[in-house]
């Protein structure tokens, strides 16, 4: 019989002073026909940081994240994951990566453990590591009681948690999350936020996109705002306030001031 109170989730431990950074993006560009979705994106994400990627609809957030996840080929630029180029050595670069899309597609006719077994095998995990970890993840995320049901019967929030379990099964060090709190109820949202904070505390790096600015304001160490495929502002909340001339304002004030400007201000150079 399993313990009612789940054990803490084992998360990767990495020393923050290790180099190179968890992720480095250089001059990333992507166009879909005549539409320039991403127009020269540069990012540098150190280990152990939660980075919020904000922007209005159609700004290029999801396209950027999908390129970093290795799901879209950029037209130009390079992506380095722990110093390994995703374009030159995709298999090695993908090993520490995890990506959860905003509307995750799962195998409806699989049960949770069956799904996690497949994901673990994709990342080459041994049974001795994968099975206990899968069981822990299901307990931590409150899905253990549902382990004998098909995923197709899960609610949207449960599917979101299932996708998160799949993303965490191989103990990634860089997580890319597209709107991770969509469809979650208050307690599930709190659970996910705690999980992400723990992950970052233990040296993991998280890049998340969200339209819930309150979440970004409270969780993110640094925030990047994209508009029309360009990173128009980046920094801590205080730095953003100062640059946007919104001292004392909320992230919402800063965001609206930056994104409603007719001409996006040039990226400040440090």
């Amino acid at each position, binding site marked *: 019989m399993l313990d009612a109170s789940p054990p803490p989730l084992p998360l990767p431990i990495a020393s923050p002073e290790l180099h190179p950074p968890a992720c480095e993006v250089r001059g990333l560009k992507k166009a879909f026909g005549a539409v320039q979705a991403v127009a020269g994106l540069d990012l540098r994400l150190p280990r152990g940081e939660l980075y919020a990627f904000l922007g209005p609809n159609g700004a290029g957030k999801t396209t950027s994240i999908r390129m970093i*996840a290795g799901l879209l*080929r950029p037209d130009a630029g390079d992506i380095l994951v722990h110093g390994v180029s995703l374009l030159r050595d*995709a298999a090695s670069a993908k090993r520490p990566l995890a990506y959860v899309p905003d509307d995750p597609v799962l195998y409806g006719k*699989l049960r949770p453990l069956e799904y996690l077994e497949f994901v673990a095998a994709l*990342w080459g995990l041994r049974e001795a590591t*994968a099975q206990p970890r899968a069981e822990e993840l299901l307990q931590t995320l409150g899905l253990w009681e549902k382990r004998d049901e*098909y995923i197709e019967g899960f609610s949207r929030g449960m599917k979101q948690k299932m996708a998160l379990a799949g993303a965490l099964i191989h103990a990634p060090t860089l997580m890319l999350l597209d709107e991770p709190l969509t469809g979650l109820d208050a307690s599930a949202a709190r659970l996910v936020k705690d999980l992400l904070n723990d992950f970052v505390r233990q040296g993991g790096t998280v890049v998340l996109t969200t339209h819930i600015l309150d979440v970004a304001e409270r969780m993110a160490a640094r925030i990047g705002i994209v508009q029309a495929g360009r990173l128009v502002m980046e920094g801590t909340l205080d730095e953003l306030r100062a640059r946007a001339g919104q001292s004392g304002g909320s992230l919402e004030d800063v965001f609206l001031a930056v994104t409603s400007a007719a001409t996006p201000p040039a990226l400040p150079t440090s």
Partner: protein
Amino acid sequence: MTARTLARQTSVILRNDLRLLWRDYRTLRWRAFGTAGLLALILIVVHVFAFFIVHSLRQPPALGLEATAWVFFGFFMLGSTMNTSIGLLYEKADFDLLLGSPIDPRAVLLARLLSLGVSAFLSVGLFLLPLLNATSFVLAPRYFAGWLVWIFLAALSASAGVSVTLSLVRWLGVRRARVAVQVFAAVLGASVFLITQIPRMLPVRQSRAVFAQLTAISQHRAFTFLARGARAEPLPLAGLGLLAVGAVAVSTRRLSSVFISGSQDASSVVSPTRRRRAISPYRWAEGVTYATFRKDFRLIARDPLLLAQILPSAFYLIPGVIGFGRGGGIALIAPIAVVVAAQFSLLLTAVAAAGEQCWDLIRMSPSAEIRLRVAKMLAGMALPVGLATAICLVLAFAGRPWLALITLATALTTASACAWLQVTVIRPTARRDVLKKRVSGSIGRGIVSGALILSGALGVGMVSRGFALAGSVALIVLALGALACFTLAQPKDIDHPGGELG
């Protein structure tokens, strides 16, 4: 609600459906012209053929023959309606909008019924249109009445199809009805085929007697009702018209409540898994090939709709199985084992490969893609090869162990070569559309697969009848063909939108 309001509301829905259909067609761009051109070419060829045949007849065909043809077209339209009815009735994305609006649900059902009628009408167009034109222009203008019979029959088929579908929805719920309708339509089609094959399946003397009985039935007044209508006899034509209008009116009026409750049921997802009292410990699989095989096999085995779409085609092999009573003996089932293994492996592998649901997950992983392809191929082959093995066991227990062994080896070779062709070129497609859009059927791969299946079935067929040399030649051709498939057909990049990284 007045009939006028109902008509107006129905026209609003139909106009929107037509607009969406036209937009879909326009997205095909040049391919749309290609498809239309090909269709026109086929129609011209079939017309020439039909005019030639009818001209050579010089006199109208027997009424019984015409009646049989009309009944066949009627069954075909009914099968087509049932195949599309659940999709059109319950899987359109606009239900929440339509049923949440003040539009009468009967207008929604009527619009869907008319769409089904049009689709039933068009489903036989390629054959019926040339025949009608040929008989009308060459034999007698009265055959133009066939157009009316065609329209009435389409309306009747749509009403009957919807009635059967909605009855199944009422008894079984949408999820199970979806499977039942597929099986029902497949059995219906196979039954028509089997009836035509009865004389072939029986010993010669009985076959003649049955043929005589079938001929007598085909000339009965009730059976020739449609054919007499198509020859412009006023009474059958008017009767058929009244029947069609009445069927549409009754279906729309009586079935709207079942339709609404079904649409509410369709939007809710209920896991069919029964809770077990004690959950047994999970047996974990290790290794990407084995785990992928298990995953894909589970997805196939747990998809009753998919199996319902594929497995009933085995009915078409029944005449061959029964035919052994006419002199071939039990050995005649050997080629059937090869056909079952190869044809079903081909289709199920296409579903497992092109119908993969989580491409993002797979593309994100650092796994070697070739292992995933092989695992998908094995998962697609597992069930059909299992069926073929069962047939081979029957052969072995019937006293032909060597033939059983040769058949099993041939079935495995043919199935693996056909399945391999399906995983070398993968075009990601929504799982439910793989069979519908014939993703498995690019012309080149179709021809090669067909040739392999033919060689295999011919080879074991010859061997089973004692023509060892001719059989061996066919089997060597198969082996060389399979070898060529494995060496020449190399896996191509999967055509993902946006391109691959790894």
